[in-house]
């Protein structure tokens, strides 16, 4: 199957695979699991932050997820990539959190500030506005649509990978994405003219229209 995008530098691809690290962890290697955490924490953080829209909730969810993965590593059967398995645990931790209690409404400023603390944005004004509107808009979606859009549109995973993570058929992922995008389109349409997205989108639309 396709695995989610590799870390940015394929040149220095680690000699030890995730699966080997997980096996070492199960066999009692005290450092193997922290290496897994180190490799994947940024992506897990991004998924949780975008799915939950709240840095505190996201931190709790990612922590729960990693501890849970640590505990149940022995149940990993190798039927999916380790990254897929980790994503599944993180996404489920997020969905559990959203189900258990309605996530505290968070000021978008707060989320943006949390984001900027770590990643100085190249173009503060445009990207900040876009980011704020996107996080606000995502919160209007039902959690299943939000989770699908975060994985497919924001994180760039294939529909098949997202289906494995969410443990639903690919068609379900597509339909959740379609319904989510339909809800977001009126809210985010004005951003089309903000950047150079307009040209790309029109070309895409034309292509679709012409079959």
């Amino acid at each position, binding site marked *: 199957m396709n695995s989610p995008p590799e870390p940015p530098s394929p040149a220095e691809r680690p000699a030890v695979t995730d699966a080997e690290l997980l096996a070492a962890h199960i066999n009692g290697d005290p450092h193997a699991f922290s290496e897994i955490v180190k490799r994947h924490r940024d992506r897990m953080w991004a998924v949780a932050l975008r799915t939950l829209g709240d840095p505190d909730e996201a931190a709790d969810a990612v922590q729960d997820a990693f*501890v849970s993965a640590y505990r149940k590593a022995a149940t990993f059967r190798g039927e999916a990539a380790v990254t897929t398995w980790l994503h599944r645990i993180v996404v489920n931790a997020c969905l559990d959190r959203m189900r258990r209690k309605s996530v505290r409404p968070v000021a978008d400023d707060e989320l943006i500030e949390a984001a900027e603390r770590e990643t100085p944005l190249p173009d503060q004004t445009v990207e900040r506005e876009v980011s704020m509107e996107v996080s606000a808009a995502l919160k209007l979606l039902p959690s299943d649509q939000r989770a699908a859009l975060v994985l497919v549109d924001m994180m760039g995973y294939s529909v098949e990978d997202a289906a494995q993570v969410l443990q639903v058929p690919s068609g379900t992922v597509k339909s959740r994405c379609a319904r989510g995008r339909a809800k977001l389109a009126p809210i985010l349409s004005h951003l089309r003219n903000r950047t150079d997205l307009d040209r790309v989108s029109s070309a895409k*639309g034309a292509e679709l229209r012409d079959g």
Partner: protein
Amino acid sequence: MTGDTHYDLEILAELAEGLLDVDTARRVREHLAVCDPCGELLADLAAVREVLAATPTPAMPMGVALRIDKALAAEAESRRGGVGLAETPDWDELMRDAPWEQPVSTESAPEPVRLGVVSDDGTIVPARRTVARRRRWAMPAVAAAAAAVVVGTALASTSLLASGGGTSGTSGGGDVVAKSASSPPASPATSPPKDHKRAKSYSLTDSGHNYSEQDLRRPIEGLFGFRQAIDNSADAGKVDKCVSRVASRSKLATYAVDQGQYNGQEALIVASWKNKAAKRLRIDVVDPFNCKNLRKPALGHW
């Protein structure tokens, strides 16, 4: 239906995802060919994907990463019952013959050995371990063992230090523990009386960062140079004591001290100027209780 009736966003989104049956898809496409408003909606949908993809995804903040490390260390401890405490190698002892340690070792008197007590599980606990500690210094036993293993491995892989490692290995735990029990007050020669009341000559920060060997090879400024200095921490006295000991060993001026961890173990990172003009520093990593080096002092740069 190419006339008045338009398609809604949901149908158009399904078209884009290839979810419509062949006949419906063809009808919608025929409509799109002649209907500008619906074409605009389709472009809006495509823009949603572009906007979502362009939204930056931040890296995990250091505080969250540290939190997770701690939670996993606690999990490791609870699983393994917290037994098997291993002592950290005594770097002061191992590095005694290193060139930069010579001046100190020549003037230091033999240190009296203090006794430890044997605990239930057979390990020897230094008698002085009764000093009350703040919670942030508390560390899971397994994490301590893990840190010791890491340091031990690094030691074994350094040919320069191979003989020192052998000494540590063969002398057994008792010797090491006895050394660790000989605490700062027991060696007046190595801790010259200093007036702790006077203003600090170095900046003290408390990042809590878990340093790795790789971190310390990078310019230190990026790690803690930008952090806000703290003055009146409750730890300042304890830190100052260790800084004095490090300074007495290195004979260098301390520039900056950060409270954090080294491979998961509580540690003070002490940076002293070796050559200020060249921005060369000596980096000592010491434990905050006994001020002993947790790894070989090394050169770093600012």
